[in-house]
């Protein structure tokens, strides 16, 4: 018995050591980002690559902020309305598909789910053509194609499947009797939604808003195809800043951190909901 207990303790110690070693590996990029971003240009030579800065400076941060600020603002204009709209649509769809089902709802749900997995490359060229067409049709240059509204539209539409899935799986857990009781009281579909379903939706809303905000904030593919210099979000600007040969590493790293602060904050403060979104989206990447 004592031998078993001792072996158990040893293996616990070994597990802890291995896990800690992986923590170090996982944090190496973070160390590099922080350390490099606070270095002055005079310490940029390769010999000091892994050293802490001798003189700490926020100069690189200042320059990176100046370059990146318009992109960060565009990302806010993209991600806030985009995630709220996605949430509203997902909630209505999830409600109907779980509690107010119509014939063929299962087939429809499967068809929705496939929309979650399509590589967006497969719709990109037609999408560009459609948005260009909308620009011409409405006479609003740079609004649909080359503008943030067009990008929001794309994200909201292609976010419907995952948002519907999360809300549907959440609403399934609401007892049918509650819905029935409301119906018996003479409430219609929308009244039942407002008085029974919406008040208990907060956790699902948090999951969806966080999930969509993170996806929209981090998106690069749609942004590269659909936006122009005036509407580039932070990811595209970051890539341009870092891609320029003349940009020193310190500025690249500071810009990379700046662009990641909003999603990192959400992760740290609301990690619980972030996790739930990940698990709900176990069907999606």
């Amino acid at each position: 018995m004592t031998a078993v207990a001792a072996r158990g303790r040893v293996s616990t110690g070994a597990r802890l050591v291995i896990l800690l070693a992986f923590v170090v590996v996982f944090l190496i990029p973070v160390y590099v980002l922080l350390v490099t971003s606070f270095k002055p240009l005079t310490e940029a030579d390769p010999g000091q690559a892994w050293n802490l800065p001798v003189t700490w400076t926020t100069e690189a941060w200042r320059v990176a902020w100046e370059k990146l600020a318009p992109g960060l603002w565009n990302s806010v204009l993209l991600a806030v309305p985009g995630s709220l709209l996605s949430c509203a649509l997902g909630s209505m769809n999830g409600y109907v598909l779980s509690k107010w089902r119509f014939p063929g709802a299962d087939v429809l749900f499967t068809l929705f789910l496939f929309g979650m997995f399509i590589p967006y490359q497969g719709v990109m060229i037609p999408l560009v053509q459609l948005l260009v067409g909308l620009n011409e049709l409405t006479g609003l240059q740079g609004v649909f194609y080359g503008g943030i509204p067009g990008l929001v539209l794309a994200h909201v539409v292609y976010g419907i499947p995952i948002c519907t899935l999360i809300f549907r799986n959440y609403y399934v857990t609401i007892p049918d009797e509650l819905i029935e009781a409301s119906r018996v009281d003479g409430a219609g579909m929308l009244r039942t939604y407002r008085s029974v379903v919406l008040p208990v939706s907060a956790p699902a809303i948090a999951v969806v808003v966080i999930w969509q905000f993170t996806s929209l904030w981090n998106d690069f593919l749609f942004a590269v195809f659909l936006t122009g210099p005036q509407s580039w979000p932070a990811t595209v600007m970051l890539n341009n800043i870092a891609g320029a040969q003349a940009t020193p590493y310190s500025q690249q790293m500071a810009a990379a951190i700046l662009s990641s602060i909003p999603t990192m904050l959400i992760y740290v403060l609301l990690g619980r909901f972030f996790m739930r979104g990940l698990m709900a989206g176990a069907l999606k990447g």
Partner: protein
Amino acid sequence: MRRARTWLPGLLLVAPSIVAIGVFVYGMLGWNFRLAMTDKHDEVSEGKFVGLDNFVSIWDQPRWHISVNHAIMFTVVFVLGALVLGWFLAFLMEKGIRGEGTFRAIYLFPMAVSFVATGIVWRWLMNSGMEERAVGLNRLFDAIGLPQWQWFRDPDWGMAAMALPAIWQMSGYVMALFLAGFRGVPEELREAARVDGCGEWGVYRHVVLPLLRPVTLSALIILGHISLKVFDLIVAVSGKQIITDVPAVFMWVAVFDSHDPAKGATIASYIVLSVAVFVIPYLVWSVRKERRS
């Protein structure tokens, strides 16, 4: 008629989404496929129907072969790497360990960061400069006596190196999936196997592993479809160099640099097909399974 009155409002409420998915997902996939079957190789021509010619002729282009081979190598290394590492981390944590929450938070945080930001650090880490010009991992390896590498610039194994940041980014997610899977194994089952004389490894092999199969399948599907369409990471680490070309980058170049819509659409169709062949059976299977239970 009375029944229709009960479900019709629901259908109406979902109708905008049905139209949107119909047009933007299925309509545009069809539109893209239709475009791939024309000879619209510049932006002004009308585009005559040429059947599957583009799907055949793209195999005559050396760059296409390169990008397909790259995608295969990237996918194998990334999917296996993230799966094994994620499983291993979950395996170490499944019985509970002090500070588990912190470990999980650290392994998972890369998921919250964009591939573009990640790519910038990893480009620095995987810089191919050597000797006194070495930065990043090469400098570190040199200091501790390990060999230095070309990393993603290696002509043969470059895409295997390119998979490293992706593994770093996604293995925490796989860990979370497996950890949920481990915890879903009822303790009574393990106990029953122990009573039947199974050692801990026997319990693991005969009880736990079979029950992890659905989680493993989900993880494979998720990683696989991310891998086949990988774009952001490649662009952020190396731009559109041929040495790290993949179909998604090739498509981007076809659309914006070569101004060849039909070629771009052809590549895009191949990307969609490569994902659809395993995702559609998986979706049908999982919806059926859900309905049975």
